[in-house]
C-alpha cells in the first residue's frame, strides 16, 4: 500500500518538495471518503481543512434565493479543494458537495499552519503554490464573469 508521503510526492502540487517537507505535511493528513450527495462543508463554516481530491467529483456551490444551489465549479481527481484555511478569517467561502463517491486526502489546516509558522521556508513554499492555485481560479472566474457565450443586447 502506498504511503501518504508517496501519494503527495506523485502529485503535481507537491512536486519537488524535499522529503522532510512531505513528511511534515503528510503528518497532518488523513484519507477520507464522501458518499455522493454528502456535504463536505457549508459557506461560513470554520476553514480548518483542505483536501486533495483523489477520486470522484466535488461541486462548489453558492446558495441563491431565486435559483437555489448554483454550482460555480466542480473539482475532480488531482484538484486541490480549499484555501480559506490559509488566511484569516479562516471561513469557507462557499458550499461543497460530493457529486459522486469521492475519495480525498484531508489536511488539518491548523496543523499545517503551525508547521509553517515554525518553518517559514516551508510556509513560503506552500504559500507560493497555493497562490498559483488561487490565481488560476481567479482567472477562470474572470472568464466566467465575462459570460462569453451569452448574447448581448
Amino acid at each position: 500500500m502506498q504511503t501518504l508521503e508517496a501519494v503527495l510526492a506523485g502529485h503535481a502540487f507537491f512536486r519537488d518538495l524535499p522529503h522532510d517537507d512531505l513528511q511534515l505535511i503528510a503528518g497532518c493528513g488523513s484519507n477520507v471518503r464522501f458518499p455522493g450527495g454528502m456535504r463536505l462543508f457549508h459557506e461560513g463554516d470554520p476553514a480548518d481543512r483542505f483536501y486533495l481530491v483523489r477520486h470522484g467529483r466535488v461541486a462548489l456551490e453558492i446558495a441563491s434565493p431565486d435559483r437555489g444551489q448554483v454550482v460555480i465549479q466542480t473539482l475532480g481527481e488531482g484538484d486541490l479543494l480549499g484555501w480559506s484555511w490559509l488566511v484569516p478569517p479562516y471561513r469557507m467561502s462557499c458550499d461543497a458537495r460530493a457529486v459522486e463517491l469521492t475519495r480525498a486526502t484531508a489536511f488539518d489546516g491548523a496543523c499545517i499552519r503551525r508547521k509553517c509558522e515554525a518553518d517559514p521556508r516551508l510556509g513560503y513554499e506552500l504559500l507560493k503554490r497555493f497562490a498559483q492555485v488561487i490565481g488560476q481560479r481567479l482567472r477562470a472566474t474572470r472568464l466566467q464573469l465575462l459570460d462569453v457565450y451569452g448574447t448581448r443586447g
Partner: protein
Amino acid sequence: MAPRLFRVRRITREIHDTVTLHVEPAERDGEVSFAAGQFNMLYLFGLGEVPISISSDPAEPRVLAHTVRAVGPVTNALCRLKRGQMLGVRGPFGSGWPLREAVGGDVVIVAGGIGLAPLRPILYHLLAHRDQYGRIVLLYGARTPRDLLYERDLARWRGRFDVQIEATVDAADTGDGWRGHVGVVTTLIPRAEFDPAETTAVVCGPEVMMRYTIADLQKRGLPPDRVYLSMERNMKCAIGLCGHCQFGPTFVCKDGPVFRYDRIAPLLKVREI
C-alpha cells in the same frame, strides 16, 4: 459570385436559439466539396447574407449542415426556415483546419459555445481516419447544460474508447440535473491527455475564450506554431475584395478563418483592429 440555390432538406433544433440546417443543391445530383473549417455565405432573398461555418462531415458533399444561432435579422429568419424552402449559398470559402499537418500526432480540439460547429467536421474526419492520428481530445465548454450542442454526437463519441471527450458548462443550477464538469473550458486543459511535443491544437470560440485557452495550452508546453484558431470577423464579400473583415494585413474570409496562432499572435494583442 452568384449564389447557388439550395433546398432545406432537414432541420435539427439544437438548443433554444440554435438550429442546424441540412441543405442540398437544388439541381439534380449536385455536390459541394469542402474542407473542414470552411464556411459558406447563406443568402435569404430580400433579407441579406451571413457567413456560416459548415458543420457536417466533409466526406458527405451532397448534404451540407450549417448550425445557425439566431442573433440578428438574417440568422433569425434562417432559424425559421421550414423543410423544402430555398436559400442561396455561396462558397465554400476560406482556409481549413490543418488535417495533414496533424497526421501522426495527438490532436486537441477546444471549442466554446457555437465554436463547436466549425470543429465538428474535423472530428468527423479524425474519427474516420483514426489510425492516422495519436490521441484525440475534445474539450468543449458551453454556458449552461441547456446550451450544449450536438448532444447525440457527444453521446456517440463518448461511447468510443479511442477519443477523450470532456464537456463543461460555465454554471449550472442543481435542478439542471447536470452531473458533469462546471467551470470554464480552460479548466479542462490540465485534464487532457496529450503529448505537448507531438500535438496540434485547434481552437474555436469567442476571442477572449481563445486567448485564455492558448495561454493555458502554452502553459502545458504547446508551441505557438502548433495551435490553430478560427477567427470571426464581419465577412461580407467572402472573396477578399470588400475589406469588411480585414484583420491587420490579412482578410479573414480569404486568408482565414483558420489561422496558425504564431502568424496572428501580434494582431490579437491590438485593442482595436
